[in-house]
């Protein structure tokens, strides 16, 4: 079925080859004896760019002077499809790719895996991989390596909330008892809002049915009905009689202005806001039971890279306490390695949030949840 190549693919392939030829040609002379340059492609927001460009890569090239790093930013993942097509085109033409390391979404890793685009990571290649919890590696079939993570947690203001809710049921009861003092962002606009919505869905429908690559069956979504009824019932108790701000940041601002006293926020954003004094000191973060969802950010090594030795060196270094500490300091992320490899001070800092988190629903179920939230909760029917 895959043998007939659509013409658009061929054109893309030709264009990518031309681009690669241009890049190789341009880098040809003069690059002979100088250090090896690794092209590091990073998907993310500006804070992640700063993490790589200002912190991780300078530290890495200082420790390993035989390498240099060329940082290629892909803001919010723009251009990711192009990068995947480029790597695929190079592979199909039996040419090397200039992408030596790629931080990207699991969906691109999954798309490229059947074509053999990625190196399967083992502890022989990367000794420090033993420090990563194996289930995290299994999530992408060892084709990518988590180096930082975050989850959605509950932020509460101790000035107004004396006994914070510890469970989802406590939280739901608190919302009803304190109308106007809680909200979550529109699930279309941020993961923190999605996590609250998904947690209520998981309360009524077993999450195993919608996660981990379970087959898609729209009929299974009928089990979500009580969740929509419950969320709809909460609307009058939301901030401003049912107002959901756009985006994760807007929720943090409502917390900062003390318009709401409890809200779901991303662990890394919340910690960062607290560190920078953008949230009152009385705001604390905690994970509830059952936990809200979270995820890891992973890096992948393209098999067609000509500098795989350098890539493996960088991957191995990323899992050292030195690099992991940088991740925690600059973006307040969770470490990619198991918490037990982190110093006690770090474990102390994250004690209230460093707990297991729920998995994201599979993309089709997730898309339907967001649509149904709009139809059944916001849209009022």
């Amino acid at each position: 079925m895959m043998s007939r190549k659509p013409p658009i693919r061929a054109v893309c392939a030709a264009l990518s080859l031309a681009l690669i030829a241009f890049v190789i040609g341009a880098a040809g002379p003069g690059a002979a004896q100088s250090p090896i340059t690794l092209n590091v492609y990073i998907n993310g927001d500006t804070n992640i760019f700063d993490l790589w460009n200002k912190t991780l890569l300078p530290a890495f090239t200082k420790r390993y002077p035989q390498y240099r790093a060329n940082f290629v930013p892909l803001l919010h993942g723009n251009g990711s499809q192009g990068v995947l097509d480029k790597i695929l085109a190079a592979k199909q033409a039996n040419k090397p790719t200039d992408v030596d390391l790629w931080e990207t979404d699991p969906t691109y890793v999954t798309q490229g895996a059947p074509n053999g685009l990625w190196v399967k990571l083992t502890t022989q290649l990367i000794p420090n991989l033993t420090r990563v919890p194996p289930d995290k590696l299994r999530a992408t079939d060892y084709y990518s390596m988590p180096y930082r993570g975050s989850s959605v947690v509950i932020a509460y203001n101790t000035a107004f909330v004396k006994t914070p809710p510890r469970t989802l049921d406590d939280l739901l009861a608190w919302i009803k008892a304190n109308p106007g003092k809680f909200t979550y962002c529109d699930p279309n606009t941020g993961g923190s809002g999605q996590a609250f919505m998904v947690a209520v869905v998981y309360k009524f429908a077993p999450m195993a049915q919608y996660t981990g690559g379970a087959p898609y069956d729209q009929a299974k979504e009928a089990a979500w009905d009580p969740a929509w009824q419950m969320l709809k019932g909460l609307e009058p108790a939301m901030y401003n009689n049912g107002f959901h701000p756009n985006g994760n940041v807007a929720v943090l601002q409502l917390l900062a202005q003390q318009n709401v006293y409890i809200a779901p926020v991303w662990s890394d954003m919340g910690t960062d806001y607290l560190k920078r004094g953008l949230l009152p000191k009385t705001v604390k973060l905690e994970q509830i039971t059952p936990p809200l969802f979270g995820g890891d950010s992973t890096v992948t090594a393209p098999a067609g890279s000509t500098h795989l030795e350098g890539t493996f060196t960088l991957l191995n270094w990323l899992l050292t306490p030195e690099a992991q500490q940088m991740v925690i300091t600059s973006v307040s992320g969770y470490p990619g390695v198991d918490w037990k490899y982190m110093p006690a001070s770090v474990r102390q800092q994250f004690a209230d949030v460093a707990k297991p988190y729920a998995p994201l629903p599979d993309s089709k179920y997730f898309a339907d949840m967001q649509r149904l939230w709009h139809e059944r909760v916001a849209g009022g029917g």
Partner: protein
Amino acid sequence: MRGVLGFALVLPPLLVLVFLVILPAISAVITTLTPATGVVTAAPLANYAEVLGTRTLRTDIVFTVIVTLVAVAMVFCLSYPLALYLRFVRTRIAALLGVVFMVPLFVPVVIASFAMITFLVGHGLVSTVLFRLGVERFPRLVYNATGIVLTEVWVSIPFAVLILGAGLQAIDDALIDSARDVGAGPLRTFLAIILPLNATPTMITLTLLFIAIFGSFTIPYLVGGNAPQMLGVTMTNYLTQYLRRTESATMAVIAFIIASVIGIVYVASVSRRERAAP
């Protein structure tokens, strides 16, 4: 020979139009008429029935039309007097005002939207002033239809003033003077001379405003509420968030049909002017 050269010059935009607008539009229409995979017996208009059968989507369509009509009416009522003032009052202040009122034309829509949000939110300037004046209870001004209308009006006024003003400039002063000479007051002059002579620019302004506001995305996305939403936002959500391409395309075709009714009015008024021109 000149014909060939002329055709060669219009060829690039024509190709862009054909390959980037017309062909994708046709393929989108075909998509909307094709039943979803797995459904064997479905009417050709099944997708339309589904979209129009979804209550939230019906609400969104009606909401979009109403918000657009209200915004167009407000822009028009605010711009016409302004255009008249700038046309007939020849003072330094009028000239200065003419420049000041053009400012929104040079402010990017994203920035205008965020400015309106900070201006209108619960702790913003407008609320603070109202509160100081003793008004403690007033409807929310942003993240709803009110916010969208106010921002669309703010952004659209210069455009409306420009087109209406250009039409007013074209009216011969002699006509107005002679109307005054035979004793017509300002209102009579306006109703009998200015309004009819400026009818075509008026129609053009109204139709272009309608289409621009109807299809806007940035303002309703940033200033609008969770529900109902304007079609631009709903279509984007269906395409990128809900992974429902067909529904999104179906809504686009419905939006296109609504806009093309207005487009016919526009073409009719423009071609009438063409014919009227010597």
